[in-house]
């Protein structure tokens, strides 16, 4: 027995052999008696309490995530070139909502500048994390995230031709956004087509996603070679992912698109659990697997497309937020999905605030910071976690 690899709490006090839990296997007669026993209210209560106890930790984690998000939002609106205190920020937010504005300058800073940006950050983080969580489930792949099926490459291509060649599907302020949105849908449509022809195996979907990603990146590269350096810089800034220059209408639009999709996915969570035991099992439990997979893919694509169009490519959150939650609360998607959403939102809000404040008067793009904060946090949890998570 190698004591070094055993977690500390499992070592018996006297250093003797491992203390196995007492295992009592019933006889067939006893088993039949257990199974067929009349309904017992005491037993029901005991089991229900046990179940409530195990669910409590998970609900607590989600509540904790919500509190962390709210606090991070309040801190985010307070920090900037002009610092507003934590409680002062709360006061200003309340004053604005109640229509009793006292401090006009700070009210302007918060309501017109920092709050929409922070909220868009929260929506982005939540959307990417939900997308990552769902993609990891439906594609049965731990490395999947919202971008796996080529959404990022499609959006990148749309933005590339807008910035460099000036080819846009519409004109006006939203030209790049609309380009990115429309082109990001193309890879998913192709994948749905392929899975229709070839059977929707998760691996086929991931592989076609990768193929499409390379294809779109290659086409984008052709444009980039011919580009003006000034246009390239603008494109590069977009690709890094930024929450700057965001307005209330952007926030509202993202909210209106991503919330119904997220609610739909939330409704599917117990089906995702079944799917984690394989397509055949899910089918035998009454799930229409290809419908579930395709609908979820479309919902994730729409969420991701709208986010990418407004904020550019913010990496890592979608991959890592679900894994962080999985380490803490396990892989029951009914809890994992909301938990991932709040943790993802929290990460992006913190990352964006840090990038905005830490290097004043310069701003570091949120996409860079998410990886800066997320990667060490993730590695720490990976090393610390005692359980086998994957």
């Amino acid at each position, binding site marked *: 027995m190698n004591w070094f690899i055993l977690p500390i709490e499992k070592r018996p006090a006297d250093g003797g052999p491992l203390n196995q*839990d007492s295992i009592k296997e019933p006889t067939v007669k006893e088993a*039949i008696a*257990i199974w067929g026993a009349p309904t017992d209210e005491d037993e*029901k209560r005991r089991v229900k309490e046990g179940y409530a106890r195990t669910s409590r930790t998970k609900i607590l984690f989600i509540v904790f995530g919500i509190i962390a998000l709210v606090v991070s939002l309040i801190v985010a609106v307070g920090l900037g070139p002009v610092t507003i205190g934590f409680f002062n920020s709360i006061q200003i937010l309340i004053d604005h909502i109640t229509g009793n504005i006292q401090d006009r300058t700070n009210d302007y800073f918060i309501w017109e500048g920092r709050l929409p940006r922070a909220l868009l950050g929260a929506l982005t983080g939540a959307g990417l994390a939900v997308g990552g969580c769902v993609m990891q489930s439906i594609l049965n792949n731990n490395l999947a995230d919202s971008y796996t099926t080529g959404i990022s490459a499609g959006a990148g291509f749309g933005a590339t031709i807008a910035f460099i060649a000036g080819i846009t599907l519409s004109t006006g302020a939203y030209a790049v956004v609309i380009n990115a949105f429309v082109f990001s849908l193309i890879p998913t449509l192709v994948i749905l087509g392929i899975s229709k022809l070839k059977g929707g195996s998760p691996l086929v979907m991931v592989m076609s996603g990768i193929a499409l990603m390379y294809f779109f990146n290659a086409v984008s590269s052709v444009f980039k070679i011919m580009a003006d350096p000034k246009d390239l810089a603008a494109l590069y800034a977009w690709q890094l992912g930024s929450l700057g220059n965001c307005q209330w209408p952007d926030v509202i639009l993202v909210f209106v698109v991503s919330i119904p999709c997220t609610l739909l996915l939330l409704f599917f969570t117990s089906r995702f659990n079944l799917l*984690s*035991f394989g397509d055949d099992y899910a089918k035998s439990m009454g799930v229409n697997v290809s419908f579930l997979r395709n609908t979820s893919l479309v919902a994730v694509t729409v969420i991701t497309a709208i986010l990418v169009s407004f904020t550019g490519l913010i990496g890592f959150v979608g991959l890592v937020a679900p894994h962080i939650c999985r380490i803490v609360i396990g892989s*029951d998607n009914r809890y994992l999905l909301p938990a991932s959403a709040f943790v993802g939102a929290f990460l992006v809000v913190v990352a964006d605030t840090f990038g905005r404040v830490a290097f004043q008067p310069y701003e570091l793009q949120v996409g860079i910071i998410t990886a800066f904060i997320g990667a060490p946090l993730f590695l720490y949890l990976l090393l610390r976690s005692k359980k086998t998570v994957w």
Partner: protein
Amino acid sequence: MEVRVESLFCGYGKEEPVLSDINLEMSTDDGLICIIGPNGVGKSTLIKCIDGLIQPQSGAVLLDGKDVREYGRKELADRIGYVQSVYDTRSNMSVFETVSMGRFNHMGWRVSAEDLQMVDRAIRVMGIQHLSEKSINELSAGQFQKAMIARGLVQDTEVLILDEPTSNLDIRSQVFVTSLLKNMANVEKKLIIMISHDVNIASKMADKILILARPGRVLAFGTPEEVITESNIMEAYGVECDITDHEGRPNILIRSDSV
């Protein structure tokens, strides 16, 4: 419920059918049916066909006279439970949560006290209550298999199909599970179909045995006394054996020099 398999041909893609011209009649009066036969003969293919998970090339499986393909997936899930032999899962849900997935069709948004009680009972029936809060991917192969059987039980269907449910179990648990399934089938008037490689346990517990032989055909279907014969074992597996009587059922002893 009555399961009828009518001149079923079934296989994968455009290849030769694995099963050819299978005709069977099974019902909830039959209790426990064990399917035995050599590797690759189509045992799993047959039970997947019965649960509508793969489409027959021709012929049909009828449940109460209606073609399986005409049932919706949810209707089938209410009638047939299916426990696979192997699961490729990365899930780290607890054993309790995993077993409660078997109640999926009965649960709404909120899990009822009845569901929870049933899950708890199934876990105790399988003797894995000490593992109930452990993550499913931390179990041994045998413990995992017991959890999967428990999950099949809580689905509470008239027909339960199990693909090699005892392949990873110790000798006590093999007899326990097979005997438990037989008792449940008889007490609760269920049809339980299981694939097994232990001819002797099958012979001892099953109400009926179905022997499949190459190439994908029914060699014999009947009570253990009727079908466990030297000639049938020879034809199915190509081994010589002696048949003795143990507890009133045929018991085979394989002659090792015939292999």
